[in-house]
């Protein structure tokens, strides 16, 4: 995914848009993502009024409702700082679909475009903007990577995550069959078409497990809940972890540098 | 209002935005692609059409009739359909090859025989395309459409000098749009299907075998 990266020196401040899933269902991953950024000497600003990117309504065809939610996010990032999002599909929503959502209102459209240009998926930001260079501090392990479809196709996240993991000497990344195939989550699809969604999730869980990895990693909350929920229902102990948490743990946590602390 | 008028009226009522012709983009695109050198075209064509399951015999122009005779004998072809009014048809007629059958009357008069009594047909081509291993057939009153379709074996004469790099070259340099026959035709291998469990099988409805005589300059 070609895009213009912010010119000039490395940013000192970023906004963090946690997404509703990370806020409520995997907050530790959000915390780890914030700490990864802080360890790089960055001040992380968490706008307290953030809620959700509006994707569930948007993809279900409820554009007005999606617009109402999206509009509530547009004013949360007044400074010209990057906005880092720890979930690929939500980042894709803000980056690619916000401008379309406000296409008919020039003022809001301009705001949405300005925001879209600043939105980064976490791994993209770490790799392409911060140019992180890490040393692995964990025991040898094997993992496999599942990238959400929108992250893959709208944000190129699979490539970024792969490059980050390649920096970790002790981590072997195994490739599952049908790697680029969807896990079957699809937001409301998972409840509207449970049979198909369940079959896809089950196939994905099989493919990930069959790699022989110790765990799978994903940078998308929806996929993680879908696949982990499937594995748990099967009483399988194989699990997925958010990429941010894995990266944080493998690179020594706060061991290296001290974070500056997030600012509200 | 007729259906025609209603359909056209609906289309005309839709928002219209004139777009530029893609002609320039098409020209630029094909000009940007790597091209096979002229002296390699015959080789590329032969390799490609062989990969499509055709049998290729490279033969000097003056000796193709003899080659045809050998093939007829080797394949046990008892009846060979040919186009008597064409140049190659005349050469065949003079060859004395046994079992020659001229396509010289409308199909209605001999349909049954065409379907059940012909082993092979021999036709000319209007050239070929190297990139895909494709022959260009230009059936007409003298060499009708069914010759390359109904008999189980199709023998085609391809002149090595008439091979062009791509389909785009063929359509533009041969000026197809200026005058098309009732059925201009590209043929790339024998008839085939993969409709049963993706398994490739030849001779679905058309020829089971395609034999190409690739005619080159005179032998030294």
């Amino acid at each position: 995914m070609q895009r213009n990266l912010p010119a000039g020196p490395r940013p000192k401040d970023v906004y963090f848009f946690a997404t509703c899933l990370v806020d409520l269902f995997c907050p530790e991953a959000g915390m780890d993502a914030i700490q990864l950024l802080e360890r790089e000497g960055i001040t992380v600003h968490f706008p307290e009024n953030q809620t959700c990117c509006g994707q569930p309504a948007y993809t279900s065809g409820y554009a007005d409702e999606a617009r109402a939610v999206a509009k509530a996010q547009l004013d949360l990032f007044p400074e010209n700082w990057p906005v880092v999002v720890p979930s690929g599909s939500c980042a894709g929503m803000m980056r690619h679909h916000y401008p379309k959502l406000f296409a008919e209102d020039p003022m809001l459209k301009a705001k949405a475009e300005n925001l879209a240009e600043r939105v980064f998926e976490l791994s993209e930001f770490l790799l392409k903007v911060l140019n992180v260079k890490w040393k692995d501090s964990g025991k040898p392990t094997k993992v496999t990577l599942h990238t959400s479809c929108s992250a893959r196709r709208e944000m190129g996240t699979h490539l970024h995550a792969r490059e980050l993991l390649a920096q970790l000497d002790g981590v072997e990344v195994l490739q599952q069959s049908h790697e680029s195939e969807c896990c079957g989550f699809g937001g409301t699809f998972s409840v509207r078409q449970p049979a198909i969604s369940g079959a896809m999730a089950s196939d994905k869980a099989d493919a990930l497990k069959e790699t022989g990895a110790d765990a799978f990693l994903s940078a998308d909350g929806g996929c993680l809940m879908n696949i982990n929920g499937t594995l748990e229902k099967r009483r399988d102990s194989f699990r997925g972890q958010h990429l941010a948490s894995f990266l944080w743990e493998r690179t020594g946590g706060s061991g290296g540098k001290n974070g500056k602390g997030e600012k509200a | 209002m007729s259906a025609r008028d209603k359909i056209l009226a609906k289309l005309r009522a839709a928002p219209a935005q004139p777009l530029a012709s893609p002609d320039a983009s098409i020209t630029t695109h094909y000009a940007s692609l790597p091209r096979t050198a002229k002296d390699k075209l015959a080789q590329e064509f032969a390799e490609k059409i062989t990969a499509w399951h055709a049998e290729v015999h490279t033969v000097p122009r003056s000796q193709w009739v003899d080659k045809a005779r050998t093939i007829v004998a080797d394949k046990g072809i008892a009846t060979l359909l040919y186009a008597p009014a064409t140049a190659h048809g005349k050469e065949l007629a003079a060859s004395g090859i046994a079992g020659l059958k001229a396509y010289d009357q409308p199909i209605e008069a001999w349909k049954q025989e065409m379907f059940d009594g012909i082993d092979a047909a021999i036709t000319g081509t209007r050239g070929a395309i190297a990139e895909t291993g494709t022959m260009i057939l230009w059936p007409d009153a003298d060499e009708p459409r069914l010759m390359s379709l109904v008999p189980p074996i199709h023998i085609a004469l391809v002149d090595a000098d008439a091979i062009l790099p791509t389909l785009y070259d063929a359509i533009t340099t041969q000026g197809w749009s200026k005058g098309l026959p009732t059925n201009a035709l590209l043929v790339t291998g024998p008839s085939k299907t993969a409709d049963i469990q993706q398994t490739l099988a030849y001779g679905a409805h058309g020829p089971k075998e395609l034999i190409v005589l690739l005619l080159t300059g005179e032998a030294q």
Partner: protein
Amino acid sequence: MTTQPMQFVPGSEFKRRAAEVVANPFLRKSFRGAMDFLIAKRAAQFPDPELLERQRTLAEEIRRYSLSRLPALLEQLEANLVKNGVKVHWAENPDEANAIILGICRQHDARLMVKGKSMVSEEVELNHAMDAAGIEALESDMGEYIVQLAGEKPSHIIMPAIHKTKQDIAKLFAEKVPGVSYTEDVDALIQVGRDVLRKKFMDADIGLSGVNFAVAETGSLCLVENEGNGRMCTTVPNVHIAITGIEKVVEKLEHVVPLYGLLTRSATGQAITTYFNVITGPRREGEKDGPREMHLVLVDNGRTQAYADEQLRQTLQCIRCGACMNHCPVYTRIGGHAYGTTYPGPIGEIISPHMMGLAATHVLPGASTLCGACGEVCPVKIPIPDLLIRLREEATHEAKPGHAPLVGQGAGKTTFASLAFKGFAFLYSRPALYRLFAWGATRFRFLTPSNQAGWTATRTPLKPAAKSLRDLLAERRIDERKSC
């Protein structure tokens, strides 16, 4: 021999059919194998992603240009076809198309029609109409022949019998074709079809075909095929009737070349098909074969509805390669029949609502995870996921002011979903309210229901964390203050 006409598919029916296939491990494996095969074949044809991107951009440009001039091109096509001796007919809907074809058949006292592959003829249920009129309409594409013999519909637009194994076909032929004994040998099975159909080609009064591209400037119809049955249908019988959708026209023969190259590579991973026919009129004076009469039936059937809207118009860029279904994880799980439409998979989800109305098809745009695989492989760059979202909106809302309603507009609207999304918008556009909600959801997580509709059918229930990220951040701030 007949096939059942297409039934409207209520949402519950789609769900039930899909669940049935999903529960059949044999079918699942067979679809997966077939799709893997086609995906790999296509990928091998496009080793250079940059070149592919350039080809797709060019193909998109050609299709968009053609559509931008559609009414003019159709008139030009008609004028040149007429000049070439072809009779041109227009049909707004399936009934009109069938009546036109039936009329031609009656003029010739036709009893047998052989058919080359034509999805538009499936779309208008031509076989059913012919059967009702006592005319045998026989499919001659091997895959189509097989599904017709089985009394079924094609489950894929390129590979109609992809849902059948060779054992199924062996059994079918042994049962239905007189004098044929059971064999799983594919060559032998194809020979059976060849023998049966050759007789039919000879005897048929009418040959029917589809059209892959219609060329306005030359008045030509292009036909793409491997088997030669298309050539048989368009050459042997005395009358050739071609049927196609109005969107298939392009301006020039040169415009066909890039499209044809992408069509075969995207569809079956072939650089080219065995046959490419450019048919420009019936038998001419002095010619010894070819039909003496030729017709073209141009079918609307909802296409003008898609055309009326600039976004939905992109649907008509389609060249029917089927790559979207080959790459669709949903199609791979359920096959083509579950959709209950002529065109299954992603292209079917965006085109069927125009053909059959949203009342019958509103569930289909929702039958996708929006994973984007379809849009990624589409050779003419139809933004299928965007169109799915758009149709989801049209299916659940009244038409916007100033927009003509689609047929069946709003038919998928439910009070439950409307309220749920209103609630979603209400909650998530009010930060204070959301924070209160998040506070409650984490504190009272023990109240989370254990049965969460479709979600918990195959997964454990979703349960909020004990502390939200906001909580964790607030705690950290307190800790930092303490340590100062």
